């Protein structure tokens, strides 16, 4: 099991991670979600002992990465697919990795075959497309048959077929009882490929839960069409609801459930023509959760006023 234990990382005057604390359990695919620059890669680097934490630590089954006897047999990681010497062939790259952790040579051909680049394994990595490099990175992560797997933005550069393949692959790894920790800035990707989701923003833990948990916590809106919109608007506002009036007199109400709105309308004798609860999409939830923590947030476009 992977444990992030009050991890803090500061670089000079920026705080990349701020007391990040969570656990990643085996047997499920855990998505690690956050906007760009929120600290996902930093977290991965700290897990692998590449960077030194300012405070706290990351442990794998209770041990720091540096204390693992044969790290590649415990943790497989794909951080940056292009971080391979471009002048070396894929097979030689993997052979060197295997040798460092006493992994048998035969395993190299096995993983090359598995990720589907065996036919180009004799070619220099510099000539690889991003998709092929990703597959090589995945091969490297699988080399030691580890129980914990970390993937930083693995779908980048993959074609649709590759994305489908990698989703199924994550699931099968998790089904084998492994810990699978996958970062992404794309909620839609995580919604289909992860069972559990951990959301961070600006280096801080925001929330954790299943995809359903996360959408359930979000407050949806209710679409309403009524006979007397102005009257309903004032009544809803009295009940602390928020109303957005659309051009054609239709209303989108938030802060109140459809049941409450129906009751209000009934008591006031307003005829309801349409009343539709609108469930928040995972994307909305994510936007909502991380709205305050975007590193380079785009403000809402304002209407220009000409005088």
């Amino acid at each position: 099991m992977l444990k992030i234990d009050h991890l803090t990382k500061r670089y000079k005057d920026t705080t990349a991670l701020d007391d990040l604390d969570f656990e990643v359990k085996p047997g499920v695919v855990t998505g690690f979600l956050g906007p760009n620059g929120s600290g996902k890669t930093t977290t991965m680097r700290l897990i692998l002992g590449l960077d030194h934490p300012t405070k706290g630590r990351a442990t794998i089954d209770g041990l720091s990465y540096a204390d693992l006897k044969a790290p590649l047999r415990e943790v497989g990681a794909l951080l940056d697919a292009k971080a391979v010497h471009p002048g070396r062939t894929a097979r030689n790259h993997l052979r060197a990795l295997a040798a460092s952790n006493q992994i048998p040579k035969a395993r190299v051909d096995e993983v090359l075959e598995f990720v589907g680049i065996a036919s180009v394994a004799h070619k220099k990595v510099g000539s690889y497309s991003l998709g092929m490099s990703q597959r090589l990175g995945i091969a490297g992560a699988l080399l030691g048959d580890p129980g914990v797997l970390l993937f930083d933005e693995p779908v980048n550069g993959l074609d649709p077929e590759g994305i489908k393949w990698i989703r199924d692959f994550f699931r099968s790894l998790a089904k084998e009882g492994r810990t699978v920790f996958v970062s992404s800035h794309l909620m839609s990707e995580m919604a289909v490929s992860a069972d559990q989701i951990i959301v961070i923003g600006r280096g801080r833990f925001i929330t954790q839960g299943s995809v359903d948990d996360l959408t359930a916590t979000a407050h949806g809106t209710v679409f309403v069409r009524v006979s007397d919109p102005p009257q309903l608007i004032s009544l809803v506002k009295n009940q602390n609801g928020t109303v957005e009036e659309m051009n054609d007199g239709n209303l989108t109400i938030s802060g109140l459930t459809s049941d409450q709105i129906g009751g209000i309308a009934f008591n006031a004798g307003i005829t309801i023509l349409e009343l539709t609860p609108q469930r928040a999409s995972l994307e909305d939830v994510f936007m909502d959760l991380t709205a305050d923590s975007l590193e380079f947030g785009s403000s809402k476009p304002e209407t220009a006023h000409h005088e």
Partner: protein
Amino acid sequence: MSKNENVVSTAKSEWIKFRTVNSTIIGIAMLFFLTIGFSLLITLVLRAHWDQSTRIDRLTFDPVSTSLVGVFFAQFAVGVIGVLFISAEYSSGSIRTTLAAVPNRVRLVTGKVIVLFGSMFVVCEVVTFVTFLMGQAVFSGVVPTASLSSGSVLRAVILTGVYLALLTLLGFALGLILRQSAASISVFVVILLIVPLISLSFPESWRNDIERFELGNLWTSMASTTTPAHLFSAWSAFAALAIYVVVFLAAGTMLLQTRDA
């Protein structure tokens, strides 16, 4: 056999990495080409003009170091090989993969040093012996020659190979410290060429004390059959160079341990 990582498995891995990139192959090819090429050129010219040489020339003539003159150029080839062995890991980003596989920094440096010094020692000895024997063959009959049956000649030839192998490690240590190919190679060249130029501006009494510590003069000492004036003896020069290498390697290892990769 234990399935854990150890310095042997690290060295095996580094050996695969060392020999599977073109830069190593090209670097070693350059080493042979420069050393043998320039030595051949200069020994041939010397032989052709020997009858015009003065009495002083003849008295101070050293067939050993003269035959090995191409080593001057070899210094740059081995420096680049050493630098690239680590700086290429930084420029490609593969250092992160390497450190994930071998999180123990001291073990990583040890493994790399074993591979680099082990292989470059063999290569440099081969190139110096070939160059020496070629030079004596060119000289023979016209110019005085030296023979490996003399202990001090044998020592000079062996220590020249050792000098180059240690210089490889110095390049490696600079790469470890600076993490950048161009910067490391520049500093290497500065130490090798510019530092002696600066010391030229010092008063002679100082120079006699300082110059023996310069890399080029360490080689002069190591390649001499006798101890040159104001310079170290062969073994003292070897010890001084070894200390340089150890100090730079220790500094590089310390930085590797404390810096974020």
